[in-house]
């Protein structure tokens, strides 16, 4: 097996399997946005700090700008588009809206995926645990106040229908 500069990968995204030929240098986030046209996943920096591109890969929240698409070969990826699959908004999505946890909405998809990763692993997070869970997601609009409240309310099941 010798190094290649492009290869065919198979990735499951939001339950659907995709087979594509990709350059080894292509970042997962560009594969998701430009090749699968799932534009809910955003890009806010070029150094892996902002978390706008956060997706869940094989159950773990990761920054899709810090992975090559070829590294996701054989993996299962969840993006923000998976949250309301079936038309029903996810409790976190309803809670973000109810608590005004988003203004421009650009960081929101990544923020939601980090929050989902938290609640998938910790059903009763403390405020500090919530803040630590979104430490890797920058929001320039809200000061995080309402985001923390929204995640807390969602964790406690106190979300309007």
């Amino acid at each position, binding site marked *: 097996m010798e190094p290649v500069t492009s290869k065919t990968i198979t990735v499951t995204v939001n339950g659907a399997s995709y087979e594509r030929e990709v*350059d080894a*240098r*292509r970042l997962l986030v*560009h594969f998701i*946005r*430009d090749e699968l*046209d*799932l*534009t*809910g*996943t*955003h*890009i*806010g*920096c*070029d*150094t892996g*700090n*902002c978390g*706008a591109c956060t997706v869940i890969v094989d159950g773990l929240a990761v920054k899709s700008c810090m992975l090559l698409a070829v590294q996701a070969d054989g993996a299962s990826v969840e*993006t*923000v*588009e998976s*949250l*309301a699959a079936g038309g029903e*908004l996810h409790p976190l*999505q309803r809670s*973000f*809206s*109810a608590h*005004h946890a*988003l*203004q*421009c*909405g*650009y*960081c*929101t*998809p990544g923020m*939601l995926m980090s929050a989902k990763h938290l609640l998938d692993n910790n059903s009763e997070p403390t405020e500090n645990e*919530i*803040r*630590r869970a*979104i*430490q*890797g*997601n*920058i*929001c*320039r*609009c*809200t*000061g*995080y*106040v*309402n*985001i*923390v*409240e929204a995640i807390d309310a969602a964790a406690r099941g106190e979300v309007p229908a």
Partner: protein
Amino acid sequence: MTTVAPDQVEAPQKGFAGTSIPRKEDKRLVQGEGVFFDDVKRHGMGYVHFVRSPYAHAGIVSIDVSAAEAVEGVYGTLIGEEVAAQTDPFFEMSTPPGNEIRDYALAVGKVRFAGEPVAAVVAETRELARDAAELVEVEYEPLEPVLDAVAAVEPGAPILHEEAGSNVVWSGTFEWGDFDEALAEADHVVKIDRLYFHRFSSTPLECAGALVEYDRGTAQWTLHCNHQMPGIGIVWMAPALRVGTDKLRIVTQDIGGGFGNKITLHPYFVALCLLARKLNRPVQWTEWRTDQHTANTHGNERTFLDVEVPVRSDGTMLGFKVKAFDDAGAFPRYEPLGCIIWAQVTPGCYRWRHVRVDFTQACTNKSPTAPNRGYSRMQQLWFTERVIDVVAHELGLDPVEVRKRNYIKAEEMPYETPNGCVYDSGDYARCLDIALDLVGYDSLEERRKEAESRGKLLGLGIGSTLDSGTNNFGQSQLLNPELQFSGNNEVATVRLDIFGEIVVTLGTTPQGQSHETVTSQVVADILGVTPDDVHVRAGHDSYWNSHAGFSGTYASQFAVTGLEAVKGATLELHSQIRRLAAVILGADGPDDIVLEEGMAKRRDMPEAALPFMACGAIINVNNAGLPPDLDDVTLNCRYVYRPPFQVPDHERKFGNLTLTYATQIHACVVEVDRETGVYEIVDYAAVDDCGTRIHPQIVEGQVHGATAHALGAATFETFPYDEDGMLLTSNFYDYHVPHALDMPPLKTGFIESPSPFSSLGTKGMGEGGGAGIHAVCAALQDALRPLGNPIVTESHNPYHRVWELIQDPAASRAGVEVSGT
């Protein structure tokens, strides 16, 4: 987070306005279904990568794009020579020498800041465009850079713009009241030799960019972009491109934050227009974070020298004198407007009558500046707050008492400032009391002792700010009497469509300010429907014919300009529906018709009702036989709101520069580790008064965000350059913005002092005036008092700066002097 409502709040007006209804924008945004510029694709589009200067200042000897163009998959390139041949320089607003500056879409002849675009390459993929950009050979002749505004105007300084012959963009003096008389009256004069407000920006999470299409048949460009001020954007771009404004169609939907940083994108966008036309294909440019930090826009950096403050022994301050040097960066792209916009808040929140300001703005070899949340007023407000705290500190007065003594009082509203601005309403002292209650001011001394016992120094600081909204662009004439700008305007169109849909289009370009939601509240209340019945188009499209010269979202004005336009258009529709219904229902006249539950009903017999659907159908598709006096009824109503402004007095530099003044008073409690200078904000309160609140939750969200920006700027966010003019914080590692763990517990309060100058009682808000910066500076100065009384003279105070104040308090005190004691 705690929120206190004051004892007696004016009762919110009935209906949907005043209630926090669910946001219309959220459903798409929480599902990742918003449409941001980078989400838009076109068949055959090429990706643009800019070749940028590694030098802060250098001549361009040659540019060779042949190797780049030879790469397979590369569609073409653009260089400065082509730009200079095909476009005219962007118009400059200043007087000589500033207006001699020639600013183009790409560097022509020389580069003036590191990161300045010198060429552009278009290719099949993003990666390939960058590969090819690396093959563009540019030969430079390095020149000495000048990196400080004060140094830039000294004789012998390197000149950025030879055609101007000077680095001065604009300079002038402002004299209001009688400062010499004030000096004579004073018991003390406090002198501060230097205060410095640093360079930073609110760095919206979505960077700039656009997809630009050129239609050869109509010679028309369409820009799918995130420009936040399209009205003025087009005014900059069209003449440069030598076309009429109608040839530029600007389309935005969702914008990932702006904060002013997306107002001066015209140089990049003109380059994209030229490429789309040259290559006859859609071109797409996405700015990356490093590009944005190095070469988009920064907030204005300002140095205040030779400050003098005449004070009476009772702590009454009579005014101030200062020499201000503002750093515009390499090109004055929105400047020199910052040279006058500060004057909207000349005396801050204070009753200072005697002011002398010598203001100079200069170019330096750094990124150009542009409006940044709190634009130019924030710098002035920081200055006034520093003055208050330094004077109180030096004269041994209580900062709270001094503020209350010098604040403009509620009963004095509306209050005319020394330069003719009219503060519409407000109660600063009451806001301060609420803020102090929230942070437990009464127990402050006990908490100091308790902190001391843990080796920590505790301090309290206050930040009093104004958020002046709805510009009178006539203020530009105080910089250059020749400029033909004055007043302001905004547009809304409200239509009742075939099936009874109420459709609203706005001229604004929201970036998170919830215009769809707030608009629907106002329309619903007037037409007697629910916000769900009101369809507000997302974003901006100049094809909607729903914009005017000053359209956009900037400078805290939607709650006035935007909503007044919405209200005006909706009232007109209201009247047309009633006129139509009166005829159809055989009523005596429009006054006999009421609108409720989506129907026009006869006042005297409510069962005689015409559903909006019928109204829409009749006018649009079933209009035979309508009486001639309904000829002007279209149910499609466009209204342009113009604030009641006069052109200011050029001679006295006097007049009303803004319509409304929201207030934010913040209180901050810090604990400083004396061993390291590391400090923590342990308690924080922000009290807001933006008049009547249409959507309290949204207002509060703006307060949170403005506070976070200010705290970030006060502690970690700065754009410093090394001696070669290289930016040292070009990404989010070194430019640390607040993360979730960095934000202190935030308490908020509010009062509502309705504006007498807006029909809804609203005031523009959201910028916050940088209150957090002022409060942190004051809190640090208060905390460090026991360690030799250091004076905080800079707006940016990272740990190492605080440690330096602790190490050498005398150095910070050297520039402060009190006479007459």
